[in-house]
């Protein structure tokens, strides 16, 4: 059952501006975490604001848990949508303690169950020792957890996270993202996660939705979207890709990187080569000159090879035994079929 259903959602801030969100249609299944990914200004924050009820859509419908929240004749104000929001700047109430912040959304409960719920949630985000502090007395990561706990406390059906880790440093980000994912699984709360960071999106999401200029480019499981990008934009926004035109003729495709087998009807195709599609191979038919070696730490090494003026990124076999020097001639071989773009 889909918990969030959006159909034809459109929002324009001024009559003559391009639409910030343009005819967006998406559904999110219950318990899923969907990452809404896109460059800044692509309309992802507007989408979240529309779902939360901070903005009124110009057209389209928003349904949460089967209930219509916004439509042609309906507009449910944010306070009655039961949607939790974590803001990019956390928006913690500076005049309230951690405890008071988290309890802010706990209403309509008797004192005892309220207290209980508060304890549980504070425990689950490990903020016990800080309960009586004020937000400005906490570190960035702690503030982030307070924001998360505050949004989760009323047990919302849907959780919206707007760049929740944007303000943290790289190491903390990595820790927090795992914590977040674990917590989300534990609570089973349906989540829409907004980010412009593709690595974060792929780590956290069950489903990835890539946005551009207010429109959805592609939706699907992260792996699939990564492996089989449908557009040039998705291919190059998610990881690195070398996009080449090719021509298929009787089971062979001709590209600037040479000819190789491809089972497709004859005609033009656009191919996106991921670095891992190409490997250094002394016997490879593609010949070029190594111009740069990038050490990636945990991810091995990335090679930049000049093939007839084309800059090609490729990988080296994990057990690469041929140390190559920059400036040397090297061979490349295609180890995986590149993705075909729909263009």
């Amino acid at each position, binding site marked *: 059952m889909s918990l969030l259903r959006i159909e034809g959602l459109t929002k324009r801030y001024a009559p003559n501006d391009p639409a910030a969100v343009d005819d967006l249609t998406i559904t999110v299944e219950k318990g899923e975490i969907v990452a809404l990914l896109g460059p800044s200004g692509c309309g992802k924050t507007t989408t979240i604001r529309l779902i939360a009820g901070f903005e*009124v859509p110009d057209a389209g419908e928003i349904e949460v848990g089967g209930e219509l929240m916004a439509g042609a*004749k309906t*507009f449910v104000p944010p*306070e009655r949508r039961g949607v939790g929001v974590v803001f990019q700047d956390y*928006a913690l*109430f500076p005049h309230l303690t951690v405890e008071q912040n988290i309890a802010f959304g706990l209403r309509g409960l008797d004192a005892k169950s309220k207290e209980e719920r508060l304890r549980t949630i504070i425990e689950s985000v490990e903020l016990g020792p800080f309960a009586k502090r004020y937000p400005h007395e906490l570190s960035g990561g702690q503030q982030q957890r307070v924001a998360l706990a505050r949004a989760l406390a009323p047990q919302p059906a849907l959780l919206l996270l707007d760049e929740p880790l944007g303000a943290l440093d790289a190491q903390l980000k990595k820790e927090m993202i795992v914590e977040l994912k674990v917590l989300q699984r534990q609570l089973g709360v349906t989540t829409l996660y907004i980010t412009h960071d593709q690595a974060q999106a792929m780590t956290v999401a069950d489903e990835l939705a890539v946005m551009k200029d207010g429109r959805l480019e592609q939706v699907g499981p992260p792996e699939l979207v990564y492996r089989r990008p449908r557009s040039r934009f998705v291919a190059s926004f998610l990881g690195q890709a070398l996009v080449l035109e090719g021509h298929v003729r009787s089971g062979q495709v001709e590209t600037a990187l040479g000819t190789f087998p491809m089972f497709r009807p004859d005609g033009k195709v656009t191919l996106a080569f991921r670095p891992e599609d190409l490997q250094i191979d002394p016997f490879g038919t593609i010949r070029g000159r190594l111009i740069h070696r990038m050490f990636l730490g945990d991810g091995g090494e990335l090679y930049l090879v000049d093939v007839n003026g084309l800059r090609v990124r490729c990988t080296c076999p994990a057990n690469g035994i041929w140390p190559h020097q920059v400036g040397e001639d090297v061979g490349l071989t295609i180890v995986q079929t590149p993705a075909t773009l729909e263009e």
Partner: protein
Amino acid sequence: MARSLSLSSAARRPRVLERERLRHLAGFALTGVVAIPILGPLAFLAWKGLGPGVGEFLGRMSELGLLWIIARVCLLAVVTTALAIFWAVPLAWLTARTDLPGREMIHWLAPLPLAIPPYIGALVYQILLAPSGAFNHMVARMAGQPPSQVQVVNIYSLWGAAWVLSLFTYPYIYLLVRAALDRANPALEEVAHAAGMGRWGVARHVILPLLRPSLLAGSLMVFLYCWADFGVVSLLRVRTLTSVIYDYVQGTMDWVVPAGLSVVLVLMTIGLLLTQLRFLGRARYTQVTSRSRPPERIPLGAGARRLAYGFVALVMSCSFFLPVVVLILQASRLGVGELAAVLSLEMRVVVNSLWMAALGATLALLLALAVGWFQERRRRGWGASTLFQVGYAIPGTVLGLGLVGFFHTTLPWVYASPLVVALGYVVLFTTPAFQAVKAAIEQLSLSLEEAARALGRGSLRTFWEVTLPLIRPGLVGGWVLVFILSMRELAATLIVRPPGFDTLPVRIWIYTMDIGPEPRAAALALTLVALVAIPWLALMLWRPRAIAWSS
């Protein structure tokens, strides 16, 4: 209107349009409500002044020497502003950028003259420097001549008025310049030093340009004050637009001259105000919350230090200590019993003053809050704040005259009650409250309110539980400011007060006008200074704590 739109677009975005229209209407209504007490009196005056014909009006104005009067006011304002800059800037620089011992104390004292209304300052300097004042007497005694033969100084002149006005308005400039010095990033100066610039070079090429906006803003405030001032120029016998208007008001039943002059005066002050807005746009009193690190302080040599202390002593004693001492001495001539009698007789007046100033401040704050919130969160109601500015620019004398005429014909029950006094305060002083409120709301991130909405609070409850507590420092600051200004207000109150409802400044005025700066007036003036200084001090002591948690 939505209904008149084509069907397709009406069907596509009906609700949004309706909301927009509602907001539009609400903004319009708000502006309308604000417009009535501000534009009404002005319209009344325009009607009265120009009613008998423009020719008649112009004839009277040329007889009056209008251009001369305007030139005189300009001269007064320029001299006052120059003097005020001369007091304020060295003080600000000494406290912000040098190692002068006791600078914190000086910084705390420097704005205190704001607690003394300039007309009380004029009263004091009348006692001291009038032709038969204490100073001339002293000189005469030393010279062994009869007092009436010696006249070394005479405060009754444009220069005297400029002296007094500058002494009691320089804090406007001081506060702005000091804040700008605090804000200025010391790194800029260090870069200039590193580039080989000397100390004076840095002062001229780095610090001065940084200070220019705040210096200009403060100077214009003082300049505008001179235009609108009524008390000082009346007491010190300088013929300006406001004093001519008041003379006509009190001596004649003629409307053409006072109403016409009022219109001229308002147009000119609005012109000045527009210049101010244009030049400065957003410059205003901003609280400085934090600074990365303190600037390098310039060490003063022993000689420079003596000079600095001398200057501080001169400014502070002329603008605060001397007036207070003179008032105390003058009031003490009464004797305890008589003093108690005066104070108990005037107790009702003190209560009136406090009551009206509190009411005026509260009304102004509520209005400022409504308009400020509406502007920041609904992007509507810009007209209202412009109107506040207009009200701020109207000299009290003019406003009083207009309010009386306008309200008597439109809302007689307001006219006949003290409410009209509070209303006058609101019209005159909503701008400072509005600036404080707006700055506070601007600093408040929208996401805080949205977070509350998402956590189940309606917009009213959100305002109540989140917005209000967070903008409280701004609200308190704004309230105290309006309260102080209202407590001091003389010109408008004098004209609009209903029978039996005098305020403290009015009583001081009546005493002074009847028999000069005599002990009873001094006792009341002292009471007023105390009542104004106390909230001011409280605010200064309280403010640093209030902003600690909002950063």
